[in-house]
């Protein structure tokens, strides 16, 4: 009997199911955009543009996904990103060194992660409040550093910033007959690197599995011998570090910073994670899903703009509508599964 049982394929678990739905919707949506809107959507560059513009969002969403899988929340990510941008620019403009600027970015992210993690896991304060305070602090510090917009004026950094990876075979022939290769910024490479590292940690490292266990049932995780406090602490460290990296990537993308940098990024990151199939209750989710979540979210925005609805408020209304759709879809799909399970 057991022989038979073994051969049976396991059904998709919640994480995989939600992720699959997102990926399918993303592909269908993109194909529709290609068919109906044509224009830029027919070029591979469009995807690279999306990636270039949103590399930092992808990175923070990864960090947030880790925290959310562990059953927590971190709403400071956007503010930390913004603070990192501002501090690095000021440092570089004082004649700093690019490598040290990267260290500074990581240091700021790590510092926030450490404080958040300590307060949340060892002093058992509600994560929402702690990271809200972190968000206030980072935003406040950004304006204390500089109220005025800043632009990077640093040769070494400019070289790095302008380094783009060209992929000729994905390019297209412009009207004047020249081949325009597809261009990808370094930030995208960093983003992919982050996704892969986080993915490997989540799926194969013991720490990652502990995140899932903790998010699934904290009490059980404790009883199973997992050091829940340390695990939770580390989830915020990861999120903090990724916020730091995200800040550096955002700076490489924009080359400038101001006090409202990355405004609303935390909510975009939460939305990306949710669309990608992460549940705020914890224990369910995956960074690969988050990546597609970010892509879905940003593609929708792009589609709205390309369809001629230039007013910025259309973007947020369609984003809201889409969020509503995904959230309801998840709720219905998961609800149906639970019923099935019972029966």
């Amino acid at each position: 009997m057991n022989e038979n049982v073994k051969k049976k394929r396991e059904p998709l678990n919640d994480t995989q199911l939600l992720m699959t739905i997102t990926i399918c919707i993303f592909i269908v949506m993109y194909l529709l955009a290609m068919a109906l809107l044509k224009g830029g959507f027919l070029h591979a560059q469009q995807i690279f543009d999306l990636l270039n513009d949103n590399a930092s969002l992808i990175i923070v969403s990864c960090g947030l996904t880790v925290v959310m899988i562990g059953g927590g929340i971190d709403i400071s990510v956007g503010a930390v990103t913004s603070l990192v941008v501002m501090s690095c620019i000021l440092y570089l403009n004082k004649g700093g060194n690019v490598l040290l600027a990267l260290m500074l970015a990581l240091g700021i992210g790590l510092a926030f992660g450490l404080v958040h993690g300590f307060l949340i896991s060892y002093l058992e304060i509600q994560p929402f409040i702690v990271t809200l305070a972190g968000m206030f602090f980072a935003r406040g510090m950004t304006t204390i550093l500089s109220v005025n917009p800043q632009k990077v004026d640093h040769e070494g950094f400019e070289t790095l910033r302008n380094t783009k990876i060209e992929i000729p075979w994905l390019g297209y022939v412009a009207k004047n007959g020249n081949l325009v290769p597809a261009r990808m910024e370094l930030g995208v490479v960093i983003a992919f690197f982050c996704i892969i590292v986080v993915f490997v940690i989540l799926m194969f490292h013991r720490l990652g599995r502990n995140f899932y266990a903790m998010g699934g049932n904290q009490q059980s995780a404790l009883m199973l011998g997992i050091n829940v406090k340390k695990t939770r602490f580390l989830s915020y460290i990861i999120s903090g570090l990724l916020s730091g990296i995200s800040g550096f990537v955002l700076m490489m993308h924009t080359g400038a910073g101001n006090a409202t940098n990355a405004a609303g990024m935390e909510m975009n990151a939460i939305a990306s994670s949710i669309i990608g199939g992460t549940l705020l209750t914890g224990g369910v989710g995956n960074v690969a899903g988050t990546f597609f979540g970010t892509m879905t979210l940003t593609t929708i925005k792009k589609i709205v703009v390309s369809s001629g609805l230039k007013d910025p408020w259309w973007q947020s209304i369609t984003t809201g509508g889409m969020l509503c759709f995904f959230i309801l879809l998840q709720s219905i799909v998961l609800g149906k599964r639970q019923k099935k399970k019972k029966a």
Partner: protein
Amino acid sequence: MKENLKKMPKGGLGQLTIPVIAVALLVIFNLIRDPGFFSISITHNNYGNAVLAGNLISIINGASELAILAIGMTLVTAATKGQDISVGAAAAIAGSVFVKVLKSGADITGGTVILAFICACIVAMIFGAFNGTLVAVFNIQPMIATLILYTCGRSIAYWINGGATPTVTSPIINAIGSFAPGIPIPMPVIIVIVVAILFKLLFHFTSLEILTQSVGINQSAARLNGINTTFIKLLSFILLGCCVSVAGIIGVSRLGLINHETLLLDVEMDAILAVAIGGNSLGGGKFKISGSIIGAYVIQMLTITLYAMKVSSTDVKAYKAIVIVLLVVIGSPVVKERFEKLMKKRKALLKGGEKA
């Protein structure tokens, strides 16, 4: 009342310990810094009314919207174990509707203001019901469900008034936003008192309190005791909708215009904070409205104190964050436990010393 006090846990004030300590600390700090900080004077405003002025008044006045939102937020938190992050956006919608209705008539009379208020209130309640439906019927976590309206609410507000930021000038609106003739107390403060009393009456004449707490603590058990959990959750969001519309209207009346982008910006975070500072668990269940209201005043007092210390309005957030962290750290059960242990040890040492 005395009996009630007796029954409280040994912390003395129970849940209210932290907000009361916070108020006390802020008061003492300000008095040391500037003994005249809380002095109240009587001045005459542009309309020739004798009105009260001073830091204390501006604190109590300025916290009005926040206090009202905190009341509704407390209920939502208690019933649904989550928070509504769309209150700022919903307030912008309510404010826009209010202005739209006012502008549609020829002139602004008491009647049109009431009509406009009712319209704004209904619209806010409808949006509350939308959030509530997602949470109560579809079992979506409140923060996620309200993320939708948070994302697009201000855009809807923009659409209501066609993208403009119309102004309304009328003595009535001015009276709502600042002072009514003959009354030296700011109108928003009076509105807060009225709303608080209304909620007090609501709790007195209905069983909302115990039902809400039951749903928040153990939904399954609540349902098996015949409680309509869907209704209770929905109701909490609709009541929050009422609060939102009142807060939105105060906000609009203060400025005499509706700016969909800046009206009550970021207020959702402050409102949630007020609930938490008030000693209410953000995980739902037992709650105390009074705590949340004090929480709102703590936040405002902190802000005004920082302004008085010449901290620029953009930088305030950073200092606020530090104070918040200090407050929650003091309130953290872990820290309390450690502290109590330390005190015990000290006592034991002292006793030992006496004996010797």
